[in-house]
């Protein structure tokens, strides 16, 4: 009985399924690889109940924000609703009640969703960009650069950001875009620390040395090896940064530093507070934006934590 040995001794054995040997261009390979990585990530994310719940919340609010772009702006104009009930409790016509000018709180909340989310996102992008660049520079370059940049980072870490934000708002005015920049510029330090730590650890890995031995320039090493290793950590961190940015914006608006023209949730709470909603028992006016802020921040936090679990530490399949 002549049979071939179960596995040929000279061929190297692999455990992965056999792939069709087709002609693959490097670009196709890259796309194939990215698709595989994304689907693996999604599969892992779906396992996390916390992540999926958070994602559901976020999708809901993003939907609301998008809807607000097409909604009837007239509902927000106090001159239009002079005939409506003021400070009326929730009813069928006004599901979240009305505020002191008779404007539906629901309409205000929907509008606020767009503003708050946008500010949070934009500020987080600035914060992430600044933090990543500074962190990478500090981690990759020489000890001197590192020391200087880290001292600057330390300063920003310990500064009471609220005090700084108030000063900056007083100096540059209360403009929608200024607020975004202020939040971005005062919150990058945490990301910078994180990125620097990651760069330092990746820099020492042997495959970096191999790349250099092959003849790679610094740029090649940073682009091809260090940055891809940073992306998961940066991404997870950005999600959390958005949550913090939204909270920060609410704080600033509540203190009256927000842009009076754009009604974010924080601005709503501020107005409600100043109009005496508490004493007038108009709880719906205060609760609606507050609960929304809590839910959105919770949503981002849950998604961020779920991503963190997947990304850190890397769980290998073997």
């Amino acid at each position, binding site marked *: 009985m002549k*049979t071939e*040995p*179960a596995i040929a001794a000279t061929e*190297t*054995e692999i455990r992965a399924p056999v792939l069709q040997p087709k002609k693959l261009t490097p670009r196709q390979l890259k796309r194939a690889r990215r698709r595989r990585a994304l689907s693996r990530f999604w599969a892992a994310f779906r396992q996390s109940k916390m992540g999926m719940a958070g994602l559901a919340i976020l999708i809901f609010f993003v939907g609301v924000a998008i809807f607000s772009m097409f909604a009837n702006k007239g509902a927000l104009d106090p001159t239009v609703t002079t005939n409506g009930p003021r400070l009326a409790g929730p009813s069928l016509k006004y599901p979240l009640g009305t505020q002191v000018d008779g404007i539906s709180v629901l309409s205000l909340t929907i509008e606020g969703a767009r503003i708050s989310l946008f500010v949070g996102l934009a500020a987080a992008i600035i914060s992430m960009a600044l933090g990543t660049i500074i962190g990478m520079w500090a981690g990759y370059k020489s000890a001197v650069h590192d020391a200087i940049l880290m001292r600057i980072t330390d300063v920003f870490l310990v500064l009471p950001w609220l005090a700084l934000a108030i000063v900056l708002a007083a100096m540059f005015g209360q403009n929608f875009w200024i607020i975004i920049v202020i939040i971005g510029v005062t919150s990058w330090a945490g990301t910078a620390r994180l990125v620097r730590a990651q760069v330092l650890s990746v820099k020492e890995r042997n495959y970096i040395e191999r790349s250099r031995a092959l003849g790679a320039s610094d740029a090649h090493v940073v682009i091809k090896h260090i940055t891809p290793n940073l992306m998961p950590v940066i991404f997870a961190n950005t999600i959390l940064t958005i949550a913090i940015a939204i909270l920060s914006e609410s704080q600033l608006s509540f203190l009256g530093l927000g842009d009076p023209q754009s009604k974010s949730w924080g601005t709503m709470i501020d107005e409600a507070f100043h109009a005496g909603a508490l004493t007038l028992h108009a709880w719906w006016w205060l609760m609606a934006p507050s609960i929304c802020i809590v839910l959105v921040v919770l949503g981002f936090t849950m998604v961020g934590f779920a991503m963190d679990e997947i990304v850190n530490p890397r769980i290998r399949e073997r």
Partner: protein
Amino acid sequence: MTVLRAEDLRVTYSTKGGDVPAVRGVSFEIDKGEVLGLAGESGCGKSTIAGAILRLHSPNTKIEGTLELEGEDVLSLKPGRLRAVRWTGASIVFQGALHALNPVQKIGDQIEEAIQVHGMATQKEAAVRAGALLEQVGLPPRRKDDYPHELSGGQKQRVMIAMALACSPTLVIADEPTTALDVMVQAQVLQLLRSLQHDLGLAMLFITHDLSVLVDVSDRLAIMYAGKIVEEGKASEVFHAPQHPYTAALAAAFPEIGDTRFRHRPAGLGGDPPDPQHIPSGCPFHPRCERAIDACQTVVPELWDAGPGRRAACVHVAGAPSLESVGS
């Protein structure tokens, strides 16, 4: 007097990916004052055996078969008795003392802890014994106030040995004790282990992948592959006249300097040690074996007689039954 006896020992890990049979039926005996060397590569199950003897595996891990330490069945020990037996009956010298020593505790304290946990001495007595142990392993007693990071790799391994001897066990399990060390330091530590074992009359189970080290240190040798023992016998005989093709290949990987057979001729095996979850049919070694015949794909070999005091699990040995009479 038999100190350790294992019969048909089987250890299976449960993981997310299914059951992993790390040890699939291993039997051996170690007598008082004897050193048994256990050699094999990754995935063969040798380190699993070390953990099984002291029941250090997680509760999910299934351990079946017989495992007796000085006549007592280890697998059915109640927790209280198990704790008492651990370290006093048998102790382990781990690999990579880097991680086995608490970095924020002085080494003297760590040795004393081992003694005191077993209520064997008062604090004062324990301190004295710790100092004596350090001397026994070649370190000046004053070093007991040092922290692990103040010691070199070789010195840390000596501390590990001192800890293992703290409660005067009858069996010492050495699990890759010298793997991470430099050649010269390795030789020193091996010399120490050998002399301590001899002076104290210890039984020792010496586990490593480095076959050449084992031949020096052990009285008897057992070679493991894919969760089973494939050859056993007197150490030097097994190394110099291997009966199992795997042993021959493993021995060839450690050529003697001066042996012209290996000059410019590196000997090795194709393929890789098998994944415990995908063990080939029949003889697990057959895909990599030069002397494999058709029968090897279906016949599961047992440890058959291969000479005086020797057994090997291969169809080619003298004591193997003729192929017609062996089922699959």
